[in-house]
């Protein structure tokens, strides 16, 4: 405010001086312009030589507005082309090529290292008690179908997505430009269409299992004992899903919904979002995806090599009764009516 007023005052003063000078000494002014030489030193060069400035309007402010993305008019159909400089793109680039890529790679590398370390220290988590040879059904065919649709699409989405973020620095030098570009092109196609299978899978997952995933007091105990993951023979009681599985469920539902939402915004450019929003959605999409991949890597580990008997739940849907007693004692009680001894291994309750 003060600065503007000062500038205005100075401008008026200069203009007045210029006018007065011009009126009083027309001959001197003209000769100084024409002849040049030392007389030039007396010309007030701070005064605007011609009226190029509109009163009350600063050209610098005008250019500054352009720099900040002010939109002009264009005669072509694409009115967005009226934006001369969109600076948000530079911020997008800085975040994507900077912290997003860097922290993302640390996170993925970190989770792989942690899982490897866990495997080295703890080994495969075995069924502690004696196997019964009998199984009970944990997931029916429809549930398994939903799981594998979600899982299968997620794996393709994750790999093709990571390829877009990191492929240039990893696969490209190995494959060469043209094979890598072709691969990435198909990856992009797969990513764009399988996204819908994933969204459907997440929605069905939510409907199927939300009832079993409401947090309960047992989850607190489960977390306090770290699910018995780090100690042999410790098996905190759990219903159909234990605390850890509930974390996976809610990550999948919330993360999947966020990925689906941001993904749809990006797949239909400008249908729902502006340029700036799309840039933010892209960053959010990638960041959430990296976290999800890290969580799902842990899920894949414990559901396959990490634990004996776990894969069968999503394999043929039939799990070893003893496995179920150890990991989902309350669920076994609900389903079979038998009383399972909680908290530690030992002889079965029968």
């Amino acid at each position, binding site marked *: 405010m003060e600065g503007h007023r000062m500038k205005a005052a100075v401008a008026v003063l200069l203009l007045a001086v210029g006018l007065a000078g011009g009126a009083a000494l027309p001959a001197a*002014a*003209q000769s100084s*312009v*024409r*002849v*040049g030489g030392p007389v*030039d030193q007396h*010309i007030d*060069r*701070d005064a*605007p*030589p*011609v009226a*190029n400035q*509109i009163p009350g309007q600063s*050209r*610098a402010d*005008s*250019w500054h507005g*352009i*720099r900040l993305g*002010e939109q*002009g*008019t*264009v005669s*072509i159909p*694409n009115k*967005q*082309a009226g*934006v*001369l*400089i*969109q*600076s948000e*793109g*530079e911020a*997008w*680039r800085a975040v*994507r*090529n900077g912290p997003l890529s860097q922290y993302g790679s640390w996170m993925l590398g970190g989770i792989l290292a942690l899982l490897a370390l866990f495997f080295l220290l703890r080994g495969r988590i075995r069924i502690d008690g004696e196997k019964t040879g009998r199984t009970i059904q944990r997931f029916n065919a429809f549930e398994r179908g939903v799981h594998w649709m979600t899982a299968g699409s997620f794996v393709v989405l994750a790999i093709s997505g990571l390829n*877009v*973020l990191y*492929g*240039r620095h990893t696969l*490209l030098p190995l494959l060469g*430009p*043209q094979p*890598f*570009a072709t691969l*990435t*092109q198909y990856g*992009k*196609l797969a990513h*764009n269409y399988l996204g819908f299978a994933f969204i459907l899978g997440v929605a069905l997952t939510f409907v199927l299992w939300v009832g079993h995933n409401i947090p309960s007091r047992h989850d607190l105990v489960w977390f306090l004992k770290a699910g018995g993951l780090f100690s042999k023979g410790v098996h905190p009681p759990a219903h159909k899903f234990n605390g850890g599985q509930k974390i996976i469920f809610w990550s999948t539902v919330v993360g999947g919904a966020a990925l689906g939402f941001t993904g749809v915004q990006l*797949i239909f*450019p400008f249908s729902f979002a502006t*340029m700036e929003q*799309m*840039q933010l959605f*892209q960053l959010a999409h990638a960041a959430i995806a990296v976290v999800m991949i890290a969580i799902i890597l842990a899920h894949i580990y414990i559901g396959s090599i990490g634990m004996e008997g776990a894969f069968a739940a999503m394999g043929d849907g039939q799990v070893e009764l003893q496995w179920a007693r150890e990991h989902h004692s309350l669920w076994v009680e609900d389903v079979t009516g038998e009383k399972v001894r909680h908290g530690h291994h030992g002889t079965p309750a029968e």
Partner: protein
Amino acid sequence: MARMKFLCDAERCIECNACVTACKNENEVPWGINRRRVVTINDGKPGERTISVACMHCSDAPCKAVCPVDCFYQTDEGVVLHNKDLCIGCGYCFYACPFGAPQYPQAGNFGSRGKMDKCTFCSGGPEIDNSDAEFKKYGRNRLAEGKLPLCAEMCSTKALLAGDADMVSAIYRERVVARGFGSGAWGWGTAYQTRSGQERDRSAGGGMFQGTGGPGPNPGAIPGAGGGMPTQKQGL
């Protein structure tokens, strides 16, 4: 080695759109794509200015930095070109570019944008110079013919300058000194901030009000202001 740059003098551009037309015709640009466009700011108001803008061929090109398949390359003359055979139409260069240069031939749901197209500084692409394949994908390669981009060559008021940065700067500097005011070397601060900072010092767009000192005789003089012929030759 020359460093190719565009400069649009906003004090001279008259919004005739000849650059746009010349570009479309010379390069046979696909429908819906405008490699160059003319933007009017403060349209119809005092202080109206028009600017012709295309790819600025940035030193540290954001498009090149974010491309997932690394399809961009920069020639020895600083021109940013891309390989349409590698482009997957992901739209990342379009997100990153400050000047809205990258465009796509299709509307683009499900990522079906097609191959990105942008200004090539009239210097084609990775194909053999002036081959049919190069022309079909990228348009004319005038640089290979020893000519400058047609947009600038056609410009009726020579508002749009294209060519070696030193020469463009020299011409522009001379203009600014002659008219005694005004920067309007639009976009240079965004496109050409380079590592050493030398390029910036050399650029003509440094200050808003030049003509206080500087080269040339009688820099403060306004041509024709006093009436009659100047007794001394003035730098225009």
